[in-house]
């Protein structure tokens, strides 16, 4: 329901459009009803006035003193019983003459009291009626009262019918306007949707830049975002190169110091000095490695435009591990996974995977198993299991400490797991160690929110 997202442009346009359409339609309705009513009333009154004049012109006093019409009124509704259209002619001393429609009741001749045509709302035979009347002198000088009446409901019906039709039409028009308005908003905002999708692809690492053509208003924004993503990536790459250069510049002199210290250790007179130097060089080396790993990590946090492709990311690492540990077997199980792109830094993720695989390779007797799995909720899990001796349960929490080495005879700095844990923390991954059936199992949980 992206139309209903609070604070969205879409909702803003939608509310403005709805208000505009409703106000416009209401104004049209009010004006149309009012103009139509007054127009209908006016022509109604004009018609009644014509009818009362016609009645006056057609009425005669016959020689026997009765009031007669020379011919029926032109409107046949006066002949239809209780049609709501009535007339009446009265004069003192004459029998009143009434329209055929007036099968009961009478009209109040009071309205007809002057030769000028007057009208008012009165009671008719079938309810409130608009009554017109005037008087004329008869042959004997008596007042002849001409009254014509039409039920008010006739006029109301006419106006009501019009109003109903108008309301239906205007409601249809409003719906049409709102629908076209939605379509226009949708069409107008589509480039923003595409931009947002392109940005999501960029963040998930499915693309290296914001792809697609955008209208002139947002094209500069897309271009700026692309420039920013490129600069960010270049900055990360630069930081990594600089970290590498720093490592290079520090490690070579340290290698010479280590060599000199080893030579001193071999001499009886400088044994102790040599040992101190060796220990310190080793501590320096550890710090350099750890801090450089952290520097790389800080520089490489959440870069846009790159992602980890599972299981592809593991393939070159496994090949490298087979060379590094040629007497161990590395197997990959991807049965629980389809090809997935994760929004994580591939270099950092590969570093974690490499550290864990190398660690497993060092301790495994014969085999290291790497497995990827994805559960129904979309959470990915990476497990690296070796068939080595495992770690005593009580020591597992210490495994991630800087400098922890369980076997000083096995090559390593005791930093790998500490670096792996820091990398995982930065990427939002959960790293755990457990003793499995065959050996140590490292589990890497990649939650849905990882890296975002």
């Amino acid at each position: 329901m992206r139309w209903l997202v609070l604070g969205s442009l879409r909702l803003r346009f939608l509310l403005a459009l709805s208000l505009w359409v409703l106000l416009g339609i209401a104004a049209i309705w009010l004006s149309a009803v009012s103009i139509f009513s007054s127009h209908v009333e006016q022509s109604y009154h004009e018609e009644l006035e014509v009818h009362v004049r016609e009645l006056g012109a057609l009425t005669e006093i016959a020689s026997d003193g009765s009031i007669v019409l020379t011919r029926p009124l032109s409107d046949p509704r006066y002949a239809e019983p209780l049609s709501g259209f009535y007339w009446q002619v009265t004069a003192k001393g004459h029998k009143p003459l009434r329209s055929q429609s007036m099968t009961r009741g009478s009209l109040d001749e009071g309205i007809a009291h002057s030769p000028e045509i007057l009208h008012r709302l009165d009671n008719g035979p079938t309810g409130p009626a608009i009554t017109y009347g005037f008087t004329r002198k008869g042959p004997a000088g008596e007042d002849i009262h001409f009254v014509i009446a039409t039920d008010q409901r006739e006029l109301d019906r006419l106006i009501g019918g019009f109003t109903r039709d108008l309301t239906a039409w205007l409601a249809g028009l409003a719906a049409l306007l709102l629908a076209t308005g939605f379509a226009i908003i949708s069409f107008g905002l589509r480039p923003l949707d595409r931009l947002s999708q392109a940005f999501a692809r960029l963040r998930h690492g499915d693309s290296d830049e914001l792809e697609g053509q955008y209208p002139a208003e947002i094209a500069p924004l897309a271009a700026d975002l692309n420039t920013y993503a490129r600069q960010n990536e270049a900055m990360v790459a630069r930081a990594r190169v600089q970290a590498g250069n720093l490592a290079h510049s520090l490690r070579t002199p340290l290698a010479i110091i280590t060599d000199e210290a080893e030579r001193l250790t071999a001499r009886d007179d400088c044994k102790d000095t040599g040992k101190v130097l060796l220990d310190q060089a080793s501590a320096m080396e550890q710090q350099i490695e750890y801090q450089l790993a952290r520097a790389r990590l800080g520089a490489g946090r959440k870069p846009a435009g790159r992602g980890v492709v599972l299981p592809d990311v593991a393939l070159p690492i496994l090949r490298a591990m087979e060379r590094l540990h040629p007497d161990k077997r590395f197997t990959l199980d991807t049965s629980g996974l389809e090809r997935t792109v994760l929004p994580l830094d591939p270099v950092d993720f590969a570093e974690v995977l490499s550290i864990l695989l190398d660690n497993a390779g060092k301790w495994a007797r014969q085999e290291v198993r790497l497995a990827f799995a994805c559960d129904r909720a979309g959470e990915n899990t990476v497990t690296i299991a070796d068939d080595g001796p495992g770690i005593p349960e009580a020591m597992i929490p210490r495994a991630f400490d800087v400098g922890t080495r369980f076997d000083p005879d096995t090559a390593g700095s005791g930093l790998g797991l500490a670096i792996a844990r820091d990398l995982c923390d930065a990427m939002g991954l959960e790293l755990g160690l457990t003793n499995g059936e065959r050996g140590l199992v490292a589990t890497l949980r990649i939650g849905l929110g990882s890296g975002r």
Partner: protein
Amino acid sequence: MRILVVEDDAELGRRLTERLRAADFAVELATSRADAEDWPDVDRMAAVILDLGLPDGSGLDLLRHWRDRRVETPILILTARGSWQDKVEGLNAGADDFVVKPVRFEELLARLNALFRRQLGTRAATITAGDLALDPLARTAILAGKPLRLSKQEFRLLHLFLRRAGQVLSQTDILDDLYALDDERERNTVEVLIGRLRRKIGRERITTLRGLGYRFDT
């Protein structure tokens, strides 16, 4: 055994050469990529120790160059670049091992020996032939349960014979393995050495094939 060290840092290169020579290797030193790329017999080296950050190009490219030319010599990368990205790239480019500076010399030696053993197709640290056993790392040789007293060159020669047991080795093969290119070589040295070794391990173990060379029989 001859080892080619490719290291641009003069001081580190000198020290590494010294230590390897002290460990009975014949060592050649190349200080640039161009220098190493044109090395005439890199495929006859026992191993190459390769630095990645060379002044005139990438050591990784050099590694690929060699592997493209089917040079199968074991190559150990010894570099200051310690990220796993570098390691994975280096190993996938054809390196056999990857060591980050600084490294204790004993560890470097152990890793080199592991490479030699791997090339021999054995995981054991000791190479044996009948009642003869040689431990390259401890630099000891045992014959019928008794330690053999061997000079450095005799030890190197025995190591070579054991590594390539059953194969015919020419005098050049033996000289190449025992001496660096710029060392003085004399052919009769080989004959003298073989004579001394035969006396210590038994004449019948080394067969002379006229005009071809020598063969160690197991």
